[in-house]
């Protein structure tokens, strides 16, 4: 029989006294954890609240999910419930865990690989047609996620989507171009974006999926490291004519407004975005370049194709743990002059985004170079610079975790590359820059 215990006994004490057996009684309400909305787009805020908890009690809120590769990622934060027995992540302050202070989305951008995971992981959604399924739990006391089983008070499941309902995903293999087109629902025609990524290669779809969820046709393009591209996967075997063809595929699509196309690129993709925009052959309405150089240290032929990557070995700098930084590759002094874009030829608004803790590219130096060139050309009014202290190289859509470093290659042995960025400032940079990117696109593509 359960002995009679005073109503005001602290919940944590109670469970310890009972040896972990739950005390079922009408005197003890069940705690309730809610998330609103439970199904959200990646860039939407989710409001998490716990209710019917004892007042002024330590609790932990914890998030766990599996990546597309099956790795477990988790985040947690320590709170104290207030006098009415509630915890509210949009109002309350974390006093420990993956983040501190009032961070409504901290459990999402603060995700890290669970202890015991493989090294150098980076969270990237490969299949954008399914959501991230996240288990959010409310735990008793200030504990870590590994203690979830024995301390769980309540839990809910949330889904986070890159694709809104009705968005269409279309694989493009046309005119030698390899990519994926995302179209918003409806007849269109839609303003559009060409979406470019870095030298990690492959076909990265998630940012395009989000743009389509926000009303833009968006074409994710690959130029390196994809089986459907010509030549060895370790070289860039496509040149200016490839990107021009890709732009035309977008422009000629009956559901795209031919004269409302922008280009966005991260890292080497930022270089490509500037190169495409300044080559006169196409006329984008705006360009967004993130953490990328104005030129390349890779020898390229006249058409922009790379011969090999040997030439950049000399610019690879290793730290004392053997991790490589590519940063000096993009220093203006090290750029091969013939590859340098003629930035003064740009004819549309340009937004350049810098992470000041970028360990992979010399973003600040390139930003300054672009700013100078445009000033000299009398085109300062086209230039917008966003610069974020503490943010790293991988400035991506918001509420997703940053990796300070990740696995770059594993032959002949594992090599990790540095990206930089500290969790909280990088998260703030992603959140702020995403809003500004969408506003910039709205200004120049929809008005």
């Amino acid at each position: 029989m359960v002995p009679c215990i005073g109503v005001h006994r602290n919940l944590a004490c109670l469970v310890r006294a009972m040896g972990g057996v739950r005390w079922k009684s009408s005197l003890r309400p069940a705690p309730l954890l809610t998330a609103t909305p439970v199904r959200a787009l990646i860039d939407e805020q989710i409001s998490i609240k716990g209710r019917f908890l004892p007042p002024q009690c330590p609790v932990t809120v914890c998030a766990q999910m599996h990546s597309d590769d099956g790795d477990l990622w988790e985040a947690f934060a320590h709170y104290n419930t207030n006098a009415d027995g509630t915890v509210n992540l949009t109002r309350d302050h974390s006093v420990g865990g993956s983040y501190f202070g009032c961070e409504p989305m901290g459990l999402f951008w603060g995700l890290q690989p669970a202890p015991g995971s493989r090294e150098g992981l980076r969270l990237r959604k490969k299949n954008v047609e399914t959501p991230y399924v996240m288990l959010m739990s409310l735990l008793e006391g200030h504990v870590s996620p590994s203690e979830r089983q024995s301390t769980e008070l309540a839990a809910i499941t949330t889904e986070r989507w890159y694709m809104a309902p009705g968005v269409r995903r279309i694989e493009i293999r046309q005119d030698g171009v390899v990519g994926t087109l995302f179209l918003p629902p409806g007849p269109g025609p839609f303003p559009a974006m060409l979406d470019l990524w870095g030298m990690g290669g492959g076909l990265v779809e998630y940012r395009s999926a989000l743009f389509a969820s926000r009303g833009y046709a968006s074409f994710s393009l690959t130029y390196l490291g994809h089986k459907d591209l010509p030549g060895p996967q370790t070289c860039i075997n496509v040149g200016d004519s490839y990107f021009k063809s890709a732009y035309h595929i977008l422009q000629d699509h009956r559901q795209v407004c031919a004269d409302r196309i922008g280009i966005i690129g991260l890292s080497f993709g930022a270089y490509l975005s500037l190169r495409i925009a300044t080559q006169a052959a196409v006329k984008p309405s705006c360009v967004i370049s993130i953490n990328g150089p104005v030129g390349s240290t890779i020898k390229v032929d006249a058409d922009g194709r790379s011969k090999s990557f040997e030439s950049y070995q000399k610019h690879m700098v290793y730290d004392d743990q053997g991790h490589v930084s590519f940063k000096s590759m993009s220093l203006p002094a090290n750029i091969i002059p013939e590859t340098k874009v003629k930035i003064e030829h740009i004819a549309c608004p340009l937004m350049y985004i810098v992470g000041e803790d970028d360990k992979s590219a010399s973003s600040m130096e390139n930003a300054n170079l672009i700013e100078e060139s445009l000033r000299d050309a009398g085109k300062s009014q086209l230039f917008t610079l966003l610069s974020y202290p503490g943010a790293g190289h991988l400035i991506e859509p918001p509420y997703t975790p940053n990796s300070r470093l990740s696995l770059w290659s594993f032959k002949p042995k594992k090599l990790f590359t540095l990206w930089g960025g500290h969790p909280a400032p990088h998260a703030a940079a992603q959140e702020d820059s995403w809003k500004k990117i969408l506003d910039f696109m709205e200004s120049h593509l929809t008005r």
Partner: protein
Amino acid sequence: MSHTVPPVVSVVPSRALVDETFKVAVQNLPPGSPVTLHSLHLSEDKDFWEAFGHYISDHRGTVSLAEDFSFGGTYTGKEAMGLLWSMRPVPGSREGLRLRKMNVCSPLLVNISVYSGHVEEGFREQAPLASALTERWYMSPGVRRMEVREKGVRGTLFLPPGPGPFPGLLDIWGGGGGLLEYRSALLASHGYVSLALEYFSAGELKSAEIEFNYFETAFNIVSEHPQVIPDRVGIFGLSLGSIVTNYLAAESSVIKPRCCVCISGIHVYPRGATLKGFYRALVSNTHKMRVDENNHEIWRDMVLPIPDDLSQKLDVGKINCPMLLVNGRDDQNWPTVECAEDMAKMMRAAGKEHLLTRIEYLDAGHLIEPPYSPHFRATKFIKDSTKEKAILLWGGQTKPHSDAQEDSWNKILAFLQQHLYSSQTLKAKAKM
């Protein structure tokens, strides 16, 4: 640059639970232009349902349903959710349709489009300016659905995610029969273990041998579930299910619901009778059934006048738990408001009036369901006696009925949370 950026319609959030609101907005319209916002849904029965509102864009070319007025269509005024609750079958549809989601594991898909001008008809023959798709869910992710076939009880149990234990609900529908899961799925999404109960198939009430211990057994399946707090289980009934709820609350010595919600219920019931017996008594009054100008059947007089003879009524004075009664004053199927008045009298006489909360809505009908679902003034019903399909008049006018659905659902959830989640003890309540 061309000046013809096409309009964009947005629905935020694009994926929501059916009782959550959304914000519908259109941008990039020419300023001051008349447009029509239109919703379209293809039901599981393959019928098309639609709603529409006539708007005028502002100087920036924007329309926002949260702020702007509709001047025509299936709803008027400032109605953020009008495109859902005012839906009706498209012209040319079969008569007497009712929109009910049977598969709760998939969402209701609603297409929201904007058309140029103030359009009244022929939406599918013209191209919209823009459209968006929104998902409306009865189930949160992580809610578990389990079929129950235990101790003779048939139903579906919905469990919230998490370790529990949770408060529970027995969810009892009306005389239409069958197994309706959507309210239980939604209640589980709000943190209640909820058992949607089937107690006879459609059209089988007359022959169904239902004794009340069927419901007591069902109640105990919930209260004895390892993830349910045994003394925090309530009962939720609609229509015939409310009679069952009143009966259990008053007469059962086996179960003790913590609280009850009765929508559109009555207490006129021969004491000690089975449901079959109740039905026989009801049907003996068919001479009192009326029809309206459309030949739709009005059943409310079959229960009137409310008898003074206590043996013809449930002994509601014996109820010992908080009761929330939700009724529509335009209920044409049962005289629920008159019965609620009589119930209050009986409970007052027994000193139990503090347990009763009565909510009545002017111009709401019988079928008070979760919010934003369309209103049905009259729908097909399988008549037990002849197995023929008649059309029953439920009552209610669309706008006030929809307001009643939205308002009552908030009040129901607050009531359930108060009695099943919070730690406060029972307090005397004033009648609303």
